[in-house]
């Protein structure tokens, strides 16, 4: 799709406050003396109602994403799905959130020195995503491969909004994203994810526990509070974007069976023989 054909974000259709467009022209200053511009970005909005995230992508490949809080078991399930797809001869490409080399240095520096704010945290992840979209997601999709993404833009919509950025802003930042063919949302209660994380490693990671948000000085309590917010937002996103909920408390093989059935569904009209990568890339990683 050419750049100029890209639909613009539909500010009015998203949750959150009203767009600047709808405010009176001379918006009075709020109590902090900071108003919103009367000719801000929304005033330039066109009338195109749909974003790319709401429109099926036109490529021959398939995009399958997993979402959920840390410790929900999504990566395990994606690995099992990948094994199965490869064993059946499908050309598969795997990509993971926050894995681009482009921002690794800034991310490490920001995390180590605690320089990240909710906005820069969000934008660095957006750089990572845009970079992977260009190099890891679009080429295999155009080549007709099956792209497996461990976390997708919904992670940003949930986490960054839980950190306090505006839900419309983060959707606009990620408006370049394609709509996945299938998004699996691994729903798990906080206590179970905590139990899984704490039994696997000794300490919760600083940002994973939302320590930067300052909800509690105790990492476990902070995790509980922060990830509860994230969970709540994920639940709303499930409806907004049609994610398929998976009961992540069920037994692993059972979850995998459910997932494989859903994947078979989206592969029904998939033409494996037309995939350029077939035979070459189907070796196990």
């Amino acid at each position, binding site marked *: 799709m050419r750049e100029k054909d*890209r639909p613009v974000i539909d500010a009015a259709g998203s949750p*959150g406050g009203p767009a600047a467009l709808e405010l009176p022209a001379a918006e009075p*200053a709020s109590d902090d*003396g900071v108003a919103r511009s009367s000719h801000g970005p929304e005033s330039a909005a066109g009338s195109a109602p749909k974003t790319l995230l709401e429109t099926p992508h036109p490529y021959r490949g398939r995009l399958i994403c997993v979402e959920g809080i840390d410790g929900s078991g999504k990566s395990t399930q994606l690995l099992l799905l990948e094994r199965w797809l490869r064993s059946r001869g499908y050309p598969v490409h795997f990509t993971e959130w926050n894995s681009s080399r*482009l921002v690794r240095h800034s991310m490490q*520096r*920001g995390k180590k020195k605690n320089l990240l704010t909710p906005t820069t945290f969000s934008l660095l992840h957006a750089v990572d995503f845009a970079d992977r979209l260009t190099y890891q997601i679009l080429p295999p999709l155009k080549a007709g491969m099956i792209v497996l993404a461990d976390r997708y833009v919904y992670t940003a919509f949930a986490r960054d909004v839980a950190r306090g*950025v505006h839900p419309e802003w983060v959707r606009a930042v990620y408006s370049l994203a394609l709509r996945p063919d299938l998004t699996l949302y691994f729903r798990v209660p906080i206590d179970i994810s905590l139990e899984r994380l704490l039994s696997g490693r000794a300490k919760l990671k600083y940002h994973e526990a939302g320590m930067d948000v300052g909800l509690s000085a105790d990492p476990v309590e902070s995790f509980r509070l922060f990830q509860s917010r994230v969970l709540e937002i994920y639940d709303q996103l499930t409806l907004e974007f049609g994610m398929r909920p998976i009961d992540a408390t069920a037994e692993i093989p059972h979850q995998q069976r459910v997932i494989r059935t859903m994947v078979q569904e989206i592969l029904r009209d998939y033409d494996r023989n037309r995939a350029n990568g077939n035979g070459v890339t189907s070796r196990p990683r």
Partner: protein
Amino acid sequence: MVSHPGRAKTWYGHGLPYIAKKRLPGHLIAIEGTDGVGRSAQIQLLRPWLELEGYAVSNTGWTRSPLLSETINEAKAGHQLTVTTFSLLYAADFADRLEHEILPALQAGFIVIADRYMYTAFARNRVMGADPHWTREVFGMALVPDLVLYLDIDVESLIPRVIMGKGMDYWESGMHLALGTDLFDSFERYQSRLIDEYRRLSSEFGFISVDARLPIEELQSELRKHIAEYLSGATGKPRLDPAGNGAPTRKE
């Protein structure tokens, strides 16, 4: 209608909803203009003048954030960037400086002089082919400056300055856009497009445009005149003397 001190500040879009609401009595002045137009030389002269007049000054400049500057330089040295990742890196740099430099200084009542502001991203992204609407939404977290001074120049006058200055650079010549293999031709085309875009933005956002072809001292006096005018309007105090302390126009 003008509150004292400082005018009411405005977010460009949604702003930063999570930051504590605080008053911002300082003044945010952005200096815009294309590469090599003389922004930094002018800013260097503005600072001592304002300080002698009793104003505390804080400078901030495009891609100078501690979080991103290294990453941006590394990325520009490689061949990995797309228009989108380029824009987002600039936005992250901007947000970092906004939260760690600009807002704290404004809260403390400083005059913040920004060497380039979001309009540079608007102009460049459009020339590079990014969706202009998307760029503007990404910068919805920005604070609208109290005053934007635009150093306007035509590309014919710009060229000798750049050649006599630090020379034509790969990125400032838009070589990444593959407008041509000749550096000079590419520079001319890319910078003409940028300048057209800046001029369009100037009328859209009401920049104060000054003629950057003027000699350094005269250009400085022009800038001081506009800043003095803004400050007297915003603070209700008598106007500063643009030719006052440390003015480069004074010869003795």
